[in-house]
C-alpha cells in the first residue's frame, strides 16, 4: 500500500467495535493496535506489562494525583501519554495501522490518511452480546456496559476537546446492531476504499 492508511475506531462497549477493527485489519492487512501497545511499551522500557496494564484507558483519578509543572504522577495519565506517543511515533514513521480507542481520532487528526469511525449499538443488542461473551446475567451485563462506557467516556473527554461518541468528532458513526458486525465491517471497508480512491 503506497498511501498511509490509519483506521481509528472508537466504540461503545458491547457494540462489536473491536471485532470490526480486527476484520478491517485483516481485510487491509494492517497491524491492529489496542491494549497490545502496552506490551510493546513495557518491553521497550524493560518493565512487566502487567505493571502498567491496569491503567489502560482509565480516566485520571483527580483526588489521588497531582500535577506539578506539567509533571503528573497519575499513572493513568502517564500510561495514556505513553500510548499517544507510541501511536504518534508510528504514524510519523508513515506506518499504516488500525487502532482501537485511545483517543486516536483526535491525536492522529493531523494525518491525512487517518479515517475515524465510531461504532455504536442498540442497547438490547449490546446487552445480549455482553451476556453471551462474558457469561453474565441481564442485570450484570447492563451494569458492566454502563461502567465500561462511563470509563471510556471520562478517559476520552479528559484528553480530547471533542466528546466521546459525538458524531461530529468522527468521519463516520455507525450502529453495528442493524447490519451485524460482519456486514458493518464490509460497509466500512467499502467506505475506506472509496476514501482512498479519492486522493
Amino acid at each position, binding site marked *: 500500500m503506497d498511501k498511509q492508511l490509519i483506521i481509528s475506531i472508537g466504540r461503545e462497549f458491547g457494540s462489536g467495535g473491536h471485532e470490526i477493527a480486527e476484520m478491517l485489519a485483516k481485510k487491509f492487512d494492517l497491524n491492529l493496535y489496542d491494549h497490545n501497545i502496552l506490551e510493546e511499551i513495557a518491553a521497550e*522500557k*524493560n*518493565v512487566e506489562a502487567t*505493571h*502498567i496494564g491496569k491503567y489502560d484507558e482509565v480516566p485520571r483519578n483527580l483526588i489521588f*494525583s497531582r500535577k506539578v509543572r506539567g*509533571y503528573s504522577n497519575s499513572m493513568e495519565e*502517564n500510561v495514556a501519554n505513553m500510548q499517544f506517543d507510541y501511536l504518534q511515533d508510528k504514524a510519523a514513521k508513515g506506518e499504516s495501522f488500525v487502532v482501537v480507542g485511545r483517543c486516536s481520532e483526535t491525536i492522529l487528526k493531523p494525518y491525512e490518511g487517518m479515517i475515524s469511525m465510531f461504532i455504536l449499538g442498540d442497547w438490547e443488542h449490546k446487552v445480549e452480546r455482553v451476556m453471551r461473551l462474558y457469561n453474565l446475567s441481564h442485570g450484570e451485563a447492563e451494569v458492566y456496559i454502563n461502567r465500561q462506557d462511563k470509563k471510556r467516556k471520562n478517559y476520552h473527554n479528559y484528553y480530547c476537546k471533542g466528546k466521546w461518541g459525538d458524531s461530529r468528532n468522527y468521519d463516520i458513526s455507525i450502529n453495528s446492531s442493524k447490519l451485524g458486525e460482519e456486514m458493518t465491517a464490509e460497509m466500512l471497508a467499502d467506505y475506506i476504499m472509496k476514501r482512498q480512491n479519492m486522493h
Partner: protein
Amino acid sequence: MAQILAAVIFVVMFLLIITEKLERHVVTLLSGLLTLILVFGIGMHSMDAIVETLNFKEIFTVEFWYHTGETAETASGINWATIIFIAGMMIMVEGMGHAGFFRWLCMRIAKMVSYKTVPIFITFMIMSAFLSMFIDSITVILFLAAVTVELAHLLRFNPVPMILAEIFCANLGGAATMCGDPPNIIIGTSLGYAFSDFVANTGVIVLFAVIMMVVYFYVIFRKKLVANGAVDVKALPDPKEAITNKRSFVISTIIFLCAVVLLITHAQTGLTVAFIGLFIAVITILTSGKESLIFMKKVDYKTLLFFIGLFIVVGGLEQTGVLEIIAGLIAKISGGNVKLMIGIIIWGSAIASAFVDNIPFAATMIPVIKSLAVAQGVELSTLAWTLSMGTDIGGSATPIGASANVVGTAVAAKSGHPIGWGEYCKYMAPATILVVLFSMVFIFARYL
C-alpha cells in the same frame, strides 16, 4: 459577615486547587480578587486592609533589601520577599540546569562510587538532602530522578526504591534551611528569622533525621538494590558529556556558590533574602548573554502568581480575625499545655500537609502561631520550628503531599515504573511518622 466570606473563599479555593479543574494560579488569583472585593471592600469597607494586604509599599523600604535592626518586620499580606527570592532562585537554577550542572554532579558522583548500587543509593540520598537545602526540591528531584532512571536502565536495577529515598531526603533537606522549602521561606520572611536561625534549629533536627533515614531506607530497601547482571562500566556515559557549555558551567557554579555564601552569611551582612534573590537573578542574566531571555521565559510565573493570590486570601483570613479564632481553638484544646500545643501543631500540620499543598497551609498557620505565642506566652520561634518541621516533613507521607513527590513519581511513571499509593505509603508513611515523632521529642527536649 467578612469572616464568613473570607473563610468560604479560602475553603472553595482549597477545593478548587485539589480538583485541578482550573490551574492553581488562576484559582488563587481569582480568590485573591474576590477577597479584595468581597471581604475587604464590601465586608469590611476598609481601604487600609487592601493596602496592607497588597503590601506594595514594603518593597520601597530600605529594610526590605537591607536589614539593620534586630527585630524584624512581621508584615501580613503579600510576602514580596518570598516572591522575589523564589523568582531569583528559579533564574539561577535555570542557568545551572542549562549548563548541565545537575546531570554532571549526579554522573560524577555515580562514577566516583564506581557505579555500585548501594553507594549510589546512599550518596544520592545525601546529595538530595544537601542540594534541597539551597535549591527548590522540584528541580533537585527532577534531575536526580532522571539520572536515577538512566542509571537504573544501564546498571539494571529497580529505580523505585532509590527515587523514593531521594524524594524523602529532598523534603527533609528542604526543612533544614530558610530557603529550602517554600513554607520555610514564608516562615522566615514573615517572622523575621535568618538562614542561620533555621540551620541552628531545624537544621540540627534534619541532620539527625538524615542519618536516621539513610539507615531506615537502607534496611528496608537493601534487598531491592541488587543490580541484575554484569555491566560494562566503560560503556557508561562520561560525566563530562553532561556539560553543555564549559563557560556557562563554570559561571553558574560560581553563582550557585555565591548564593550559598550570601544565604549563610545574610544575618551578618544584613542583606535580606529579597536582595539575594534579585542579586542572583541579575548576575545570572548579565552573565548568560543571549540565553538570559530563555532563562527568564522559563521562570515558573504560574507558581509566583499562585503565591501572590494565596497571600491575599490568607491576608483576608488574617485581617478578619478567622485565624485568631483557630488559634483560640488550639489554645483551648491544649488548655495552656505547651507540649500538647506543639503536638497539635506538628501532627496537625504534618497530617494536613500529607494531603494538601503545604504552602497555603503554612501561610495560614503563621498568623495562627503568632497569635498563639502572644496569647499563651509561648516562645514564637519554638512554634515556628514546630510548624516548619510539621509542614515540610508531613508532605512526604503520600504521593500528593509535596511537589517533589509528584515530580519524582511522575518521572518514575514515565519510565514505566508506576508507584501506586499503596507502595508509596508503605515505605514513606512510616518514615514520615518516625521523623515527625523524632522532631517532636527533639523540640520538647531542647526548647521546653
